[in-house]
């Protein structure tokens, strides 16, 4: 279909518009990096202990779990859906991992991780089936499973708690150890983010997720198997929440039925702060992971600066609003600029 070397390619007029869009996209992620750097700098000046190796390690460990959750959440949000159940799925997987290892000390860690991800995937599959084949809005489905999965966790734990003492050391080392000075958890999160990020960028199925979120009906008409793709997004989000659950246990050692409660709100906030549009179609896993890092840094720095807990929550709320306002503003500006070019071209 590309033959017919017709007239020489005419002067391309939209190049400027493309550069503009590219630039906005980069500015979005650079903005988070800049905010992150500024925050680090200010906190470090007021409280130098904030940038000690130990404190930075803690920061990376805390952000790692959220970054993994944010990667999964991005897959779902890009399709114009949302997964509110990730905190509960994390809790289930965390308790399962702790329970298993307490009673079977010799169980290989990769098997535990795999089981955690399978459990998460099963939860995600339930969400996916209800959303795609049940045709129920994701907000309602995952709100329901948020409570349902948490309820299962309470039934399962039956008031019990897993303690670090009962867990094998090798497993706990996964949560606290490091490779070449970098915390293992952060490395795992980095691998997850890069793999998911590149998959979204470079594979047909990844691009189809964007298409579904950008125009669901259009995607269907273009021959995209939307149900299958959305189902897969929920499945993966669940599996990653399962992985995050196992890592949660390795990191904290102590797990009860409330592990990961209200994480879903932090994760969605991180994703949105990271530039993933809540109505789908735009954003990247990298942005979302940066958003998770920024949110975690704010929390940590406010603690270090001994700011009241109330203000910590308010600060995260404010950041979310700033990010949304910024997106809206830039979006309007971009629309206006693209419009002007378009008119000039057509005239």
């Amino acid at each position: 279909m590309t033959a017919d070397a017709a007239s020489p390619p005419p002067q391309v007029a939209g190049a400027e518009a493309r550069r503009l869009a590219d630039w906005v996209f980069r500015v979005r992620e650079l903005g988070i990096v800049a905010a992150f750097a500024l925050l680090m700098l200010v906190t470090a000046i007021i409280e130098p202990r904030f940038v000690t190796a130990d404190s930075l390690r803690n920061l990376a460990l805390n952000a790692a779990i959220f970054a993994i959750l944010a990667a999964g959440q991005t897959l779902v949000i890009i399709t114009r859906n949302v997964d509110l159940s990730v905190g509960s799925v994390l809790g289930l997987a965390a308790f399962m991992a702790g329970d298993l290892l307490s009673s079977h000390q010799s169980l290989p860690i990769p098997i535990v991780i795999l089981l955690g991800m399978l459990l998460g995937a099963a939860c995600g599959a339930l969400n996916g089936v209800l959303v795609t084949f049940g045709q129920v809005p994701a907000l309602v489905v995952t709100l329901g499973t948020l409570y349902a999965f948490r309820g299962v966790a309470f039934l399962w734990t039956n008031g019990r708690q897993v303690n670090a003492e009962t867990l094998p050391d090798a497993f706990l080392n996964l949560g606290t150890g490091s490779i070449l000075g970098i915390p293992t958890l952060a490395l795992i999160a980095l691998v997850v983010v890069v793999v998911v990020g590149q998959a979204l960028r470079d594979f047909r199925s990844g691009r189809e997720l964007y298409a579904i979120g950008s125009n669901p009906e259009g995607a269907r008409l273009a021959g995209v198997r939307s149900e299958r793709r959305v189902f897969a997004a929920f499945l993966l989000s669940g599996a990653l929440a399962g992985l995050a659950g196992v890592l949660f246990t390795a990191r904290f050692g102590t797990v009860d039925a409330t592990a990961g409660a209200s994480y879903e709100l932090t994760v969605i906030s991180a994703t949105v702060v990271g530039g993933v549009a809540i109505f789908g179609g735009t954003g990247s896993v990298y942005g979302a992971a940066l958003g998770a890092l920024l949110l975690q840094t704010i929390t940590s720095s406010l603690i270090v600066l001994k700011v009241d807990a109330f203000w910590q929550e308010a600060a995260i709320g404010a950041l979310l609003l700033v990010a949304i306002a910024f997106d809206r503003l830039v979006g309007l500006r971009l629309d206006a600029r693209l419009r002007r070019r378009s008119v000039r071209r057509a005239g």
Partner: protein
Amino acid sequence: MNADATPILELDDAAKSYGAVQALRHGNIALRPGEVRALVGENGAGKSTVVKLLGGVVRTDGGRMLVDGAAVDFHSPTDARDAGIAVIYQEPTLFPDLSVAENVVMGGHPLGALHRIDRGKMHDEVQALLDRLGVRLDADRPVRGLSIADQQIVEIAKALSFDARVLIMDEPTAALSGPEVERLFGVVRTLRDRGAAVLFISHRLEEVFALCDTVTIMRDGEVVHDARTSDLTPGEVVRRMVGRELSALFPKEETEIGGPVLTVHRLTREGVFTDIGFEVRAGEIVALAGLVGAGRSEVARAIFGIDRADAGHVEVDGVRLPGHRPLAAMRAGIGFVPEDRRQQGLVMELSIARNATLTRMGALSRGGIIRSRAERRLARDWASRLQLKFHRLDDPVGFLSGGNQQKVVLAKWLATEPKVLIVDEPTRGIDVGTKAEVHRLLSELAGRGVAVLMISSELPEVLGMADRVLVMHEGRLTGELSRAEADEEAVMRAATGQIEEAAA
């Protein structure tokens, strides 16, 4: 062309109904290799249903569909695509957040090593396709912000991006300019010569006769005629479409023209239009003509206060309107029928009655509660006045055909008894019969003293309806012609900017 060849795609006595509405009966149509077939009929005749069946969007209730003579059943658009069927739908199906290139190849990205998308190849293929269509469009820019004409080009490129054996085009030319249409026809003829089958749907009969070898005519959900184009005349086609002879397409009444009602004073919106000034008098129909993208719709939007004007103002009956306030414009007596009735004119999910009375909610409610009986009474009244063809007033307005949808939009505004009515492309995508009704309606309104500002890309409509013609080119007024002065050539000269100095 070979009339005996096995059709690539065929509907055999197909039937389809939506709820109680039988949209298609005895649907027989055969698309043969090397043949361009036209599908014509009034809106609501069942053309779109045929397209949706062939494209795998909906499934038949009865009859058979055959590919290469073998019965098939498409469960989804993917199945149709796999069978080599490409469809250009009337509704926009683009992804605004993605680049032009990705929009074109979606579902069939060129792949490189490890099944990764080969971006370089994707870009080159799409750019080549765009060049072949003769448009200056960067394959890497986002679709968001493209003009309607450019969006249409992307739709076409999308359908041409894979080696289709059957190409179905549902009104692909509605937003295109002359040269763009010619380019498209060139591409279609190349496809035909390679042995593809093409189904072409258009309301422009001159295009049908210029491009198509055969024609299928539909009326009221049935195929009523199937013939070679060379055996028919445009008049015969229209007669078979409507089942009657059309007497006057443009029933312009002579009216008494009063004083100015709408005055637009040096209106400017940066980068879109500049220094627009004119007036519309009571009982006058003023047409705003120009090429697609000249800024006409944008002027209308600014007058009604949807978009903010950077300079200038609008007066109704000598009273200045606050800018950027559609509600104030409505209160001052302006009605606005927008270009895109699906997105802007109607709430597609709401019922016919609700849509028709949206502008009158204040008057219909008592203590903030809408009286549904009054609502239905008003809706029924307007439905009968405009001869609306509907099943039930509670049906979603999306169930109606395009022409009848437009009547609902008109009813919505006429119910406010406007002093000024702005209509943007009032008959786009509307069948011939309803078109005449819309024209008669506009003419009647002017006769009752309403000032009508009509934006139209169809020259016959402009010349037939308007008392005065304003022409825009690249965001500026480049011509003002009286009914006597206005002819095709004069309007086109101003629209292409050839008499800019003379008009300034």
